[in-house]
């Protein structure tokens, strides 16, 4: 088990066009915790995840992954321990075959090809895509693409898993498989989603972002027992 935590301290982020996506976010995700990140479109969920994986850097404030602050210098170290499943699986599937896509991360980690193969096979097995190695992403269904994108990250064996709306466009069966798969992931998960049921089933804690700030931070069960919380941020 990892001993990684993620800590956001007064995090601000402003895009180049002037849009202020985050306006002072403060919270901490401890090791092994599963946290749902809820909020309307444009509330800053994806931005926060991009900051956590050192793909963006705070305009103000600090993001820490374990003891390592997220900066350009530490980006590579951060990305080795943080796995990010993007909102659009097509962004993650750009190699000629699914095998090469899933192997992309481990190869970048300079692992021996034998170990790469082991990890790829294991990850594809876990997401139910064994036997699809030589297919191209173009030949997969939406659900399979999502699974392949998750396999791409699992093969890196990350300590922290970030998922950006992973259940979008999934049918009921694929969604159920995804939930079961994520239940088996024993490390830290931060899950940005609009899928309230998925959040309830997977995450013991929920953080709601509204207009770039934390509007709620507490037990997931609490937001379902008190609908006012969701109503106040426009989620109901």
């Amino acid at each position, binding site marked *: 088990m990892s001993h990684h935590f993620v800590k956001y301290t007064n995090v601000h982020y402003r895009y180049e066009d002037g849009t202020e996506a985050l306006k002072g976010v403060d919270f901490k995700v401890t090791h092994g915790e599963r946290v749902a990140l809820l909020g309307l479109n444009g509330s800053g969920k994806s931005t926060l995840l*991009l900051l956590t*994986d050192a*793909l963006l850097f705070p305009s103000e404030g600090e993001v820490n992954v374990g003891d390592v602050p997220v900066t350009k210098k530490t*980006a*590579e170290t951060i*990305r*080795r321990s*943080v*796995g*990010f499943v*993007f909102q*659009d699986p*097509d*962004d*993650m599937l*750009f*190699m*000629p*075959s699914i*095998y*090469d896509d899933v*192997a*992309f*991360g481990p*190869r*970048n*980690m*300079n692992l021996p*090809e034998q170990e*790469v*193969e082991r990890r790829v096979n294991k990850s594809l097995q876990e997401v139910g895509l064994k036997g699809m190695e*030589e*297919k*191209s992403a*173009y030949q997969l269904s939406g659900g399979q693409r999502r699974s392949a994108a998750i396999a*791409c*990250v699992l093969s*890196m064996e990350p300590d922290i898993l970030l998922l950006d709306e992973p259940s979008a466009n999934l049918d009921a069966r694929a969604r159920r498989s995804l939930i079961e798969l994520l239940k088996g992931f024993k490390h830290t998960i931060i899950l940005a989603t609009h899928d309230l049921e998925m959040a309830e089933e997977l995450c013991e804690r929920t953080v709601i972002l509204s207009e770039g700030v934390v509007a709620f931070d507490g037990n997931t069960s609490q937001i379902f027992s008190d609908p006012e919380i969701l109503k106040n941020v426009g989620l109901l």
Partner: protein
Amino acid sequence: MTKLEKAYLAVNNIDRIRRRTDSSPVILLVTIIYLIAVLSVPVDRPQGIVWLAAYPVIASEMQGIGYGKVFVKSIWILPLLVIIGVFNPIFDKVTVLHIGSLAVNRGWLTFISIIFRGLLSFQAVILMILTTGFIDIFNMMRKVGFPSVLCTQMLLSYRYLFVILEEAIVMKRAREARGYGRKAYPFSMWGRFIGQLLMKSTRRATGIHRAMMARGFSGTLPLGAKYSWNKRSWIWLISWTAVIALLRFMDFSKIITEIIVR
């Protein structure tokens, strides 16, 4: 399936079927040697190139691809070659030989030579791509000493083509879904279509780049192909180098003529 989708899958298949078997830079080296041989034939001696056609014919048959397929694909380059050589017969009118009463000027010879050289060179490259796949070619280029940055740039440009194609397929579908059978569109609309395509593909490319960075990409695309250079590679390289040298330097036309005359 539309033509665009077929084209997408056809190119994608070349790399997909390469699988993770050992590959060797030998095919790249043989192709480079062949290109040097073809391009070193003086441009006013088209007869010196004819015998070099043996390489794409024999090699494509040996690889089980079939020369017909290679030849058909190589015809695409013909218009470009014609444009390159078309002014030679007009400007270079020095008579160099007579066929019966017909005077042939040097311009025609160089024109034919350009067509042959272009076709054969292109056929050799097609053969290499069909047997190896783009990704392995770029990877092998890296192996034989081409700058890593250049190879990665070429690989990424190649992958970017797929992004553009994918976006084009989506846009084409959307247009057809609301086109109600309309085929022709005004030129100005095509301009907007291309503009949109570039913007969409740039946005996708940004997403892909982020996803690559998230998985440890640091400027060099990891390809993981295993490379072998064994006895077979040496035999293949030496044999083909010898054959290409023979085809390049031996005047088979003269030899055959002498045999017939005797």
